[in-house]
């Protein structure tokens, strides 16, 4: 039955004949591992296409929805992070394999007559690849993609006379917006793939016409007499290579937990843009071409390099493929390669030492994590950036800067009448307080509590126990809690501090649920309450803050430590409700003030 069906299809289509013709290509000189790169690239292209098509079924190209849809792919679907990761690192893999392929073709002299057009179509394909990288980078509409692409479109703008118009055409206007995304999207998923397939077809057809170019030392008779069939001899090697690449890609994706998604693009921010690694050399080059020489880096050098690649088969007309006969060309190509490598390394080295870049990377990571947390509650239709505009933590920070920073320092900024709040409420912060309350970082001269003379580990145990009383301690360690409990309850702490009963009063603050959201709330309202500092108190109470302001301030204070998370977030509750654009808590707060 199945056989009959196959025969019927074969009779009507000639499919297997076609397949046979495609696979039966004779490989002169024998199948070789050195021929795997071309088919490896075809494999990677197909991989990019299928992962890309699937992501396109979730992606929404507009300036208000792009980030949200990529966030959804990355964090809300089961395999989205993996598929996106494969697509992201797949682009780098394609670039690497394409460069290896190109240099191999160059070293083997496979660009020489009659294969000039193979070479030229290959260079065109390489340019398309760069185009894919450039257009794809912008699509998530995150900080990194947005600002790096700004550099690229500004480079377009430096082309004399027509630059301005090319730039507007690519951006879809004089500034970035919805049309920038729709245009980059159209290029990335329609124009570039169609063009690439067209040139790939030409490239492969020409390759089939002229056959492989083996190692230059292969003897003529071997080349003539040894013929392997493409299937299975060469395809076996190609499949092993493809499998190896996919395994490596999957490994990288797991290792890095997928491609990065930074916070939504903020046109008002001051972000130091960096392009993808394979454009870094061009980026670095621009540092040396400033002022009126800018055009040398943006247009002249790249244009010269490309022209050289395009005309190479016509200027190197010597029929010998021996490298020793092609020294000037080797010199040119490899000095270009060395230049690019040196510039790339310089750029990376510079960034790894630049304190602004390092700081920005840390900040960007924090922002990204925050954005993902906020997006969890839904992104308002006004766009991904609005999640930040109504972030209670941002409001809390504002209140802190208005009311608290006069006495409390954070990150080196602020007064020093009260304890330093850098890393406030972390295990380390509390252990430090226990170690020496009179330290300049804590209560200084006004501290009445004697230092606890225990090893650091024991102090950390005590901190673990104290923090474990409130929900939201990350990676709580049960053994430490037990040890800490023993130390706190059986030591001298309870002589001065009540613990276990919220309303009990002694001479020092009640430590029941120490630093929890409720504890902080009561404390900030009235630190002079007998259950806190009583008559010894020096901090003013902030009972004038509205409930919502106080909530925001506490969310901010808790966010200062990496050891703790907000209860509302830990439980996955919507602690506050978004209005059309603003959380209701914010609206209430504005009404009252």
């Amino acid at each position, binding site marked *: 039955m199945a056989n009959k069906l196959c025969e019927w299809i074969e009779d009507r289509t000639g499919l297997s004949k076609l397949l046979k013709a495609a696979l039966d290509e004779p490989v002169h000189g024998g199948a070789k591992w050195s021929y795997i790169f071309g088919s490896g690239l075809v494999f990677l292209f197909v991989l990019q296409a299928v992962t890309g098509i699937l992501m396109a079924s979730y992606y929404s190209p507009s300036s208000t929805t792009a980030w949200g849809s990529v966030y959804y792919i990355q964090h809300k*679907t089961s*395999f*989205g992070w993996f598929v996106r990761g494969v697509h992201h690192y797949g682009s780098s893999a394609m670039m690497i394999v394409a460069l290896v392929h190109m240099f191999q073709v160059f070293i083997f002299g496979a660009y020489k007559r009659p294969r000039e057009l193979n070479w030229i179509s290959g260079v065109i394909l390489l340019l398309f690849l760069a185009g894919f990288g450039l257009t794809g980078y912008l699509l998530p509409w995150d900080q990194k993609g947005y600002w790096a692409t700004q550099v690229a479109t500004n480079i377009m703008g430096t082309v004399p006379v027509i630059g301005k118009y090319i730039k507007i055409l690519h951006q879809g206007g004089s500034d970035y917006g919805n049309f920038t995304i729709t245009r980059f999207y159209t290029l990335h998923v329609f124009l570039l793939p169609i063009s690439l397939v067209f040139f790939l077809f030409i490239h492969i057809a020409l390759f089939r016409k002229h056959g492989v170019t083996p190692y230059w030392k292969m003897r003529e008779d071997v080349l003539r007499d040894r013929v392997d069939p493409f299937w*299975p001899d060469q395809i076996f090697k190609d499949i092993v290579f493809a499998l190896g690449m996919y395994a490596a890609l*999957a490994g990288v994706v797991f290792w890095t937990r997928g491609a990065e998604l930074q916070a939504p693009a903020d046109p008002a921010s001051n972000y130091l843009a960096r392009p993808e690694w394979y454009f870094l050399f061009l980026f670095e080059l621009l540092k040396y071409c400033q002022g009126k020489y800018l055009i040398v880096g943006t247009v002249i050098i790249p244009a010269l390099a490309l022209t050289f690649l395009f005309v190479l088969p016509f200027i190197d007309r010597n029929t010998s493929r021996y490298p020793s006969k092609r020294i000037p060309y080797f010199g040119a190509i490899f000095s270009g390669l060395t230049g690019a490598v040196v510039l790339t390394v310089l750029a990376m080295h510079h960034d790894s030492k630049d304190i602004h870049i390092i700081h920005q990377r840390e900040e960007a990571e924090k922002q990204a994590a925050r954005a993902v947390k906020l*997006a969890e509650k839904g992104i308002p239709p006004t766009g991904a950036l609005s999640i930040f505009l109504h972030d209670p933590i941002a409001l809390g920070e504002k209140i802190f800067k208005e009311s608290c920073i006069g006495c409390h320092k954070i990150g080196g900024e602020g007064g020093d009448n009260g304890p330093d709040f850098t890393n406030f409420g972390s295990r380390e912060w509390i252990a430090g307080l226990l170690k020496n309350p009179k330290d300049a970082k804590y209560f200084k001269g006004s501290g009445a509590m004697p230092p606890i003379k225990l090893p650091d580990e024991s102090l950390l145990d005590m901190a673990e126990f104290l923090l474990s009383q409130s929900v939201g301690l990350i990676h709580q360690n049960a053994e430490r809690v037990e040890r800490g409990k023993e130390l706190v309850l059986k030591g001298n702490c309870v002589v001065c501090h009540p613990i276990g009963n919220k309303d009990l009063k002694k001479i020092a603050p009640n430590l029941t649920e120490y630093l929890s959201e409720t504890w902080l709330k009561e404390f900030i309202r009235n630190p002079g309450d007998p259950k806190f500092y009583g008559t010894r108190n020096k901090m003013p109470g902030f009972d004038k803050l509205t409930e919502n302001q106080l909530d925001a301030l506490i969310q901010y204070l808790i966010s200062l430590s990496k050891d703790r998370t907000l209860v509302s977030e830990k439980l996955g509750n919507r602690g506050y409700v*978004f209005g059309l654009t603003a959380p209701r808590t914010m609206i209430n707060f504005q009404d009252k003030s």
Partner: protein
Amino acid sequence: MENNRRKFLKIVSHSLGGVLAAGIAAPLVGLGIHPWLKETVYGTEDFINLGKLEDFPVGVPKKMNVTSSKMDAWNIFEGLVMGSVWVLRKEDDSLSVFSVNCPHLGCGINWGEDEKQFLCPCHEGVFDLNGKVLSGPPPRGLYSYETKIENNNVLINYKKLI
């Protein structure tokens, strides 16, 4: 010998190719069927607040808009009017909340203050105060919703018609 080698290579190539294809297809299928695995468009609240109990007069049905929020993949839409319902507060403060759509063909029904009946203008379906069919083509009484009162607020489960 050479033929055997090639036969072997073919088998290995097929197997490796199969492993590769499966390795690529699995996550793609996993992503593709996401809408089977997880709700992508949904109301964020099970029970929607219609207002305070005292806002509803006893014995007279009152038409109320149902306002809630909707998650649409990554977006949240707040304050959306999802539809409207007829709310009847009874003497004992129990509630009946009816769908505004006639169970016949879905036309919007009105409350006739003079007749003290629900009337469907399309095919003259008539229902009494409790939603029971009195005359006309409707095959059943008015659809209603599960209700509850919490902190004096009237809440309905808008997801399920009874």
